[in-house]
Protein backbone atom coordinates (compact mmCIF):
# COMPACT_ATOMS: atom_id res chain seq x y z
CA UNK A 1 0.00 0.00 0.00
CA UNK A 2 1.66 3.18 -1.14
CA UNK A 3 1.29 6.62 0.39
CA UNK A 4 -1.09 7.64 -2.40
CA UNK A 5 -3.44 4.71 -1.70
CA UNK A 6 -3.32 5.55 1.99
CA UNK A 7 -4.23 9.18 1.26
CA UNK A 8 -6.98 8.21 -1.18
CA UNK A 9 -8.72 5.45 0.74
CA UNK A 10 -8.17 6.39 4.40
CA UNK A 11 -7.30 10.06 4.93
CA UNK A 12 -9.68 11.67 2.41
CA UNK A 13 -12.78 9.67 3.52
CA UNK A 14 -12.04 10.50 7.16
CA UNK A 15 -11.79 14.20 6.29
CA UNK A 16 -14.99 14.07 4.22
CA UNK A 17 -17.00 12.38 6.98
CA UNK A 18 -15.65 14.79 9.57
CA UNK A 19 -16.67 17.74 7.40
CA UNK A 20 -20.23 16.37 7.32
CA UNK A 21 -20.30 15.92 11.12
CA UNK A 22 -18.88 19.40 11.72
CA UNK A 23 -21.44 20.87 9.33
CA UNK A 24 -24.26 19.28 11.35
CA UNK A 25 -22.81 20.90 14.47
CA UNK A 26 -22.60 24.18 12.54
CA UNK A 27 -26.32 23.93 11.68
CA UNK A 28 -27.72 22.89 15.07
CA UNK A 29 -25.17 24.64 17.29
CA UNK A 30 -27.30 26.02 20.11
CA UNK A 31 -25.21 29.15 20.68
CA UNK A 32 -23.33 31.51 18.40
CA UNK A 33 -19.99 30.55 19.95
CA UNK A 34 -20.59 26.88 19.02
CA UNK A 35 -21.14 27.93 15.44
CA UNK A 36 -17.96 30.02 15.44
CA UNK A 37 -15.90 27.04 16.68
CA UNK A 38 -17.57 24.80 14.07
CA UNK A 39 -16.73 27.30 11.32
CA UNK A 40 -13.11 27.41 12.41
CA UNK A 41 -12.96 23.61 12.42
CA UNK A 42 -14.55 23.46 8.95
CA UNK A 43 -11.84 25.73 7.57
CA UNK A 44 -9.12 23.73 9.31
CA UNK A 45 -10.46 20.50 7.77
CA UNK A 46 -10.50 22.25 4.40
CA UNK A 47 -6.83 23.08 4.89
CA UNK A 48 -6.18 19.38 5.52
CA UNK A 49 -7.97 18.47 2.29
CA UNK A 50 -5.93 21.03 0.34
CA UNK A 51 -2.72 19.60 1.81
CA UNK A 52 -3.70 16.03 0.84
CA UNK A 53 -4.67 17.19 -2.65
CA UNK A 54 -1.35 18.98 -3.11
CA UNK A 55 0.48 15.76 -2.19
CA UNK A 56 -1.64 13.65 -4.56
CA UNK A 57 -1.27 16.01 -7.52
CA UNK A 58 2.37 16.81 -6.67
CA UNK A 59 1.82 20.60 -6.72
CA UNK A 60 3.61 22.39 -3.88
CA UNK A 61 2.00 25.70 -4.89
CA UNK A 62 -1.30 24.60 -3.33
CA UNK A 63 0.33 24.63 0.12
CA UNK A 64 0.61 28.43 -0.06
CA UNK A 65 -3.12 28.60 -0.69
CA UNK A 66 -3.65 26.43 2.41
CA UNK A 67 -1.43 28.85 4.34
CA UNK A 68 -3.44 31.89 3.23
CA UNK A 69 -6.69 30.06 4.07
CA UNK A 70 -5.33 29.31 7.56
CA UNK A 71 -4.49 32.99 7.98
CA UNK A 72 -7.97 34.12 6.95
CA UNK A 73 -9.60 31.46 9.17
CA UNK A 74 -7.55 32.69 12.13
CA UNK A 75 -8.50 36.29 11.41
CA UNK A 76 -12.17 35.35 11.11
CA UNK A 77 -12.17 33.51 14.43
CA UNK A 78 -10.42 36.40 16.15
CA UNK A 79 -12.88 38.89 14.66
CA UNK A 80 -15.85 36.76 15.81
CA UNK A 81 -14.37 36.52 19.32
CA UNK A 82 -13.85 40.30 19.36
CA UNK A 83 -17.45 40.83 18.27
CA UNK A 84 -18.85 38.37 20.85
CA UNK A 85 -16.87 40.06 23.62
CA UNK A 86 -18.17 43.49 22.58
CA UNK A 87 -21.74 42.21 22.35
CA UNK A 88 -21.61 40.74 25.87
CA UNK A 89 -20.21 43.99 27.19
CA UNK A 90 -23.00 46.01 25.58
CA UNK A 91 -25.83 43.78 26.87
Amino acid at each position, binding site marked *: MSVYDYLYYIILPILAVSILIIFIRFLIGPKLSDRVVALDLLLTTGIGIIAVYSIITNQPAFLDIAMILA*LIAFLGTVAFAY*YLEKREKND
Partner: protein
Amino acid sequence: MKTIIFKTASTYLLPLLVLFSVFILLRGHYLPGGGFVGGLIASIAFVIHSFANGLEQTKSLIKFHPGFLMPIGLCIALLSGAAPLLVGQSFMTGLWFEDPLPVIGMVGSALFFDTGVYLVVIGVTLTIIFTISETL
Protein backbone atom coordinates in the same frame (compact mmCIF):
# COMPACT_ATOMS: atom_id res chain seq x y z
CA MET B 1 -8.79 42.10 23.51
CA LYS B 2 -6.56 41.67 26.52
CA THR B 3 -4.97 38.26 26.12
CA ILE B 4 -1.21 38.13 26.58
CA ILE B 5 -0.74 35.14 24.23
CA PHE B 6 -2.45 36.88 21.32
CA LYS B 7 -0.57 40.12 22.01
CA THR B 8 2.82 38.39 22.03
CA ALA B 9 1.96 36.38 18.91
CA SER B 10 0.83 39.48 17.01
CA THR B 11 4.15 41.24 17.61
CA TYR B 12 5.95 38.35 15.92
CA LEU B 13 3.32 37.78 13.26
CA LEU B 14 3.37 41.33 11.87
CA PRO B 15 6.90 41.36 10.35
CA LEU B 16 6.59 37.70 9.25
CA LEU B 17 3.34 38.30 7.41
CA VAL B 18 4.60 41.46 5.73
CA LEU B 19 7.66 39.51 4.55
CA PHE B 20 5.42 36.69 3.27
CA SER B 21 3.27 39.21 1.40
CA VAL B 22 6.34 40.64 -0.35
CA PHE B 23 7.35 37.07 -1.28
CA ILE B 24 3.87 36.43 -2.73
CA LEU B 25 4.07 39.75 -4.63
CA LEU B 26 7.44 38.96 -6.21
CA ARG B 27 6.46 35.39 -7.14
CA GLY B 28 3.28 36.35 -8.89
CA HIS B 29 4.14 36.02 -12.58
CA TYR B 30 4.48 32.33 -13.23
CA LEU B 31 3.10 30.89 -9.97
CA PRO B 32 0.00 31.63 -7.86
CA GLY B 33 0.25 34.96 -6.12
CA GLY B 34 0.53 38.55 -7.22
CA GLY B 35 -0.28 42.02 -6.07
CA PHE B 36 -3.84 41.47 -4.92
CA VAL B 37 -3.20 38.48 -2.65
CA GLY B 38 0.00 40.03 -1.35
CA GLY B 39 -1.82 43.24 -0.44
CA LEU B 40 -4.53 41.26 1.32
CA ILE B 41 -1.95 39.37 3.40
CA ALA B 42 -0.13 42.58 4.36
CA SER B 43 -3.38 44.24 5.42
CA ILE B 44 -4.40 41.12 7.40
CA ALA B 45 -1.11 41.48 9.29
CA PHE B 46 -2.01 45.03 10.35
CA VAL B 47 -5.60 44.02 11.17
CA ILE B 48 -4.40 41.24 13.50
CA HIS B 49 -2.07 43.74 15.16
CA SER B 50 -4.95 46.18 15.62
CA PHE B 51 -7.19 43.49 17.13
CA ALA B 52 -4.51 42.53 19.64
CA ASN B 53 -3.09 45.92 20.62
CA GLY B 54 -5.89 48.34 19.93
CA LEU B 55 -6.50 50.58 16.95
CA GLU B 56 -4.50 53.56 18.23
CA GLN B 57 -1.26 51.57 18.51
CA THR B 58 -1.54 50.28 14.96
CA LYS B 59 -2.29 53.77 13.67
CA SER B 60 0.80 55.15 15.41
CA LEU B 61 2.77 52.24 13.91
CA ILE B 62 1.73 53.07 10.34
CA LYS B 63 2.39 56.83 10.94
CA PHE B 64 0.13 58.06 8.10
CA HIS B 65 -3.44 57.45 7.05
CA PRO B 66 -3.59 54.26 4.92
CA GLY B 67 -5.85 56.02 2.41
CA PHE B 68 -2.79 57.87 1.08
CA LEU B 69 -1.53 54.55 -0.31
CA MET B 70 -4.35 54.48 -2.86
CA PRO B 71 -3.28 57.45 -5.05
CA ILE B 72 0.38 56.43 -4.74
CA GLY B 73 -0.38 52.91 -5.94
CA LEU B 74 -2.58 54.13 -8.77
CA CYS B 75 0.18 56.53 -9.92
CA ILE B 76 2.75 53.70 -9.91
CA ALA B 77 0.41 51.46 -11.92
CA LEU B 78 -0.35 54.22 -14.43
CA LEU B 79 3.33 55.15 -14.86
CA SER B 80 4.33 51.51 -15.38
CA GLY B 81 1.55 51.21 -17.95
CA ALA B 82 2.66 54.38 -19.72
CA ALA B 83 6.38 53.50 -19.73
CA PRO B 84 6.27 51.56 -23.08
CA LEU B 85 4.91 54.72 -24.77
CA LEU B 86 8.35 56.31 -24.32
CA VAL B 87 9.98 53.50 -26.32
CA GLY B 88 7.39 53.76 -29.07
CA GLN B 89 5.32 50.70 -28.20
CA SER B 90 1.64 50.60 -27.32
CA PHE B 91 0.18 51.18 -23.85
CA MET B 92 0.82 48.42 -21.29
CA THR B 93 3.26 46.38 -23.38
CA GLY B 94 5.39 44.25 -21.09
CA LEU B 95 8.98 45.51 -20.95
CA TRP B 96 11.56 43.21 -19.37
CA PHE B 97 15.16 43.59 -18.35
CA GLU B 98 17.52 41.19 -20.09
CA ASP B 99 19.02 39.43 -17.07
CA PRO B 100 17.19 38.33 -13.92
CA LEU B 101 18.16 40.14 -10.72
CA PRO B 102 19.71 37.99 -7.95
CA VAL B 103 16.92 37.68 -5.35
CA ILE B 104 13.92 39.19 -7.11
CA GLY B 105 14.07 37.31 -10.41
CA MET B 106 12.84 38.77 -13.68
CA VAL B 107 12.03 42.48 -13.39
CA GLY B 108 9.74 44.21 -15.83
CA SER B 109 6.98 46.77 -16.05
CA ALA B 110 4.45 44.11 -14.96
CA LEU B 111 6.19 43.92 -11.57
CA PHE B 112 5.75 47.67 -11.07
CA PHE B 113 2.10 47.38 -12.06
CA ASP B 114 1.72 44.61 -9.45
CA THR B 115 3.39 46.83 -6.86
CA GLY B 116 0.81 49.51 -7.59
CA VAL B 117 -2.02 46.99 -7.14
CA TYR B 118 -0.39 45.86 -3.88
CA LEU B 119 -0.34 49.40 -2.45
CA VAL B 120 -3.92 50.11 -3.56
CA VAL B 121 -5.22 46.90 -1.97
CA ILE B 122 -3.45 47.65 1.33
CA GLY B 123 -4.84 51.20 1.34
CA VAL B 124 -8.44 50.21 0.54
CA THR B 125 -8.61 47.26 2.96
CA LEU B 126 -7.04 49.11 5.88
CA THR B 127 -9.24 52.17 5.33
CA ILE B 128 -12.40 50.03 5.28
CA ILE B 129 -11.52 47.91 8.30
CA PHE B 130 -10.22 50.82 10.41
CA THR B 131 -13.40 52.78 9.70
CA ILE B 132 -15.59 49.81 10.64
CA SER B 133 -13.74 49.07 13.87
CA GLU B 134 -13.79 52.74 14.87
CA THR B 135 -17.58 52.86 14.68
CA LEU B 136 -18.10 49.45 16.33
